[in-house]
Each structure stands twice: as structure tokens, then as C-alpha cells.
């Protein structure tokens, strides 16, 4: 018995990609700057996001979606900076997908949000395959993790737009080799922007605020021109 071949040529994550594209168009239409955050567990995503929200909330409208397998702990922490925080519990799933994001946004008026952050589940592998419709993806690497993380997880670093080195206040104690870390990031994602921050001391945060404000201004420019 011989078999016959049927050509299919279909992307397995097509549904996710289509939904992510629709979300991205919606975010652009509404003028919301959307940033995804990915990192390993314990790299300081939530502390960094807490500082981002608090800093940006001084002159902007901010919101966040936080993904975790379980608990509402992170959302509760972030609500100290803004009430616009929703937790996404993924259960056993190790990443967020576009459908979870779309569902979590329900009833939110995006046109009243300047910056929306999507904190992914702490994981440097799985989130790299799923587009969430974000405009920028930040990958976080803490000074206490070791400089070779980018080499070990090249796909997630390559799928991100900006690298944030966190916990820089601990760099000396951890004997963190900053030039090596920068070299390794450059090796897996040539030309990537790198920021060094400490959420604890506030070091380097202003540069990140500036980047985000510039991104928002850029995103809104063509829209303003179109309405004129």
C-alpha cells in the first residue's frame, strides 16, 4: 500500500500570529504603546515594572497585564502604582499567547491608556514563539544571573528588541562581568539596545522612561498627521 502526499504548508502558530497582528493594529489605532517583558523567574521583572509604572504614572496613563502560572501576588504588588492591573493565570501553561492577552483586555478603554505592559510568565524558552502584538519586547537579565544567559537562550534574546540588565546595584557583589554580558547580547542579537538599571536605587530608569516616551511620540505622530 503506497501513501500519497498532500502539500499543506501551514504555519503551526498561524492563529496566534493572526490574532497578534490584529492586536498590534488595534494598539496602534488606539495610540497605546505596548511593551512585553520576558525573563527567567526571579530576574526582577515585577520590581522593574513597579518602578516603570510608578515613574510613568506621573504624567501618563499606564496599565499592566501580568502572567503567572498561579497567584495574584504580582498584580497586588503592581496595584500600588496603578489600579489598572490584571493578572492572567495560565494554570500549567508556560507562556502567554495572543488569545489570553485579548481576553484579559476585555472592557478596557485602550484609547485612555498611554502605556500598556505585558509581563510574561518567567521563562526564557517558551514565550519566544508567541507574538502578543506588542510594539517592543524587553528581555531582562539580572546581574546576579551570570553573563552567559544570552548565549544559553539565544532565541528569546533574538526575538526581543531591547535588553535590560537589572539589579545593577548587586553587580559588584555578584562579580558580574558587564562587558562580557554586553558582548554576549551583541552576539545573539547584533545591534540590540542595552540598558543597565537598578529598580532598587533607580539607577538607569530615566533612560528607559525616555525611550518609552520617544516610542509613544513616534507611534502617535502619523496618526496626528492623518487627522489634520
Amino acid at each position, binding site marked *: 500500500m503506497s*501513501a500519497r502526499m498532500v502539500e*499543506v*504548508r501551514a*504555519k503551526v502558530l498561524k492563529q496566534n500570529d493572526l490574532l497578534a497582528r490584529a492586536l498590534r493594529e488595534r494598539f496602534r489605532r488606539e495610540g497605546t504603546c505596548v511593551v512585553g517583558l520576558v525573563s527567567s523567574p526571579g530576574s526582577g521583572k515585577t520590581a522593574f515594572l513597579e518602578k516603570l509604572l510608578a515613574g510613568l504614572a506621573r504624567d501618563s496613563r499606564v496599565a499592566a497585564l501580568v502572567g503567572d502560572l498561579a497567584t495574584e501576588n504580582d498584580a497586588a504588588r503592581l496595584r500600588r502604582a496603578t489600579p489598572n492591573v490584571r493578572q492572567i493565570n495560565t494554570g500549567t501553561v508556560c*507562556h502567554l499567547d495572543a488569545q489570553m492577552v485579548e481576553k484579559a483586555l476585555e472592557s478596557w478603554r485602550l484609547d485612555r491608556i498611554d502605556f500598556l505592559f505585558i509581563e510574561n510568565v518567567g521563562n526564557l524558552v*517558551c514565550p519566544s514563539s508567541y507574538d502578543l502584538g506588542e510594539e517592543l519586547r524587553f528581555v531582562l537579565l539580572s546581574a546576579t544571573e551570570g553573563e552567559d544567559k544570552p548565549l544559553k537562550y*539565544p532565541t528569546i534574546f533574538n526575538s526581543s528588541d531591547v535588553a535590560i540588565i537589572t539589579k545593577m546595584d548587586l553587580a559588584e557583589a555578584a562579580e558580574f562581568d558587564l562587558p562580557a554580558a554586553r558582548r554576549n547580547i*551583541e552576539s545573539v542579537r*547584533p545591534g540590540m539596545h542595552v540598558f543597565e538599571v537598578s529598580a532598587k536605587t533607580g539607577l538607569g530608569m530615566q533612560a528607559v522612561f525616555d525611550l518609552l516616551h520617544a516610542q509613544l511620540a513616534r507611534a502617535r505622530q502619523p496618526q496626528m498627521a492623518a487627522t489634520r
Partner: protein
Amino acid sequence: MHELSIAISMIDQITEESESRGGLDVEAVHLKLGAFSGVDKEALLFAYELACEGSLLEGSRLVIETIPLVIYCATCQKDRVPPSLYQLSCPECGSPGQKIVSGREIEVASLEIAA
């Protein structure tokens, strides 16, 4: 371990494909998997078998073709295979490769149907 999610997406997709063609008796699924897709081949083979249980694809084989990572070297103006997955530079001239040509695919290429 998102290979199970990937396997389930695949099965949904193929089931839909089969229905649109009036029902197919699928013996094997041929998948193109990029070396830079973030999906592990062995884990996906394992997850596929689990996910197929009780589905249209139960008993089918998954055949994975690995697609190498290829970058574009703007200096040589040529597609190049970088020295490793964690060194995205041109093996000839050493220029950084900012553009990925292939290696991210997770794509069902074809289905083998019982005659």
C-alpha cells in the same frame, strides 16, 4: 515545555485541513522546524504522541525536518549559516547578522495519506 501547546495547535490545524478535504487518513505529518524556533525536536516528538491520543491523528508519525539558521550578511551580500545559534555573525567576514533569513519555522509542510 511549550511543545505540548505546539503539538495541540498542530493537531487542531491538521484536523481542520482534513475536514476541509472531506476526511483524510493521515499516516504521517511532515513538519519543518527551524533550529532557531525555540522548539525542541525531541520534546515535540514526545508531546505529539501524547497529544494525538484520541484524535484523528492517533497512530500517525511525525517526521521533523530541521531547518538550519541562516542569516543575511550585509557586507558579503549573501545568505550565510552562522557559526552557532549563539553567534549570529558571518562565518566568512565576521560581520554581525541582523537579519534572519530562515530558522524560525514551525510549519506543517505536507501530510502523508493512506492510499
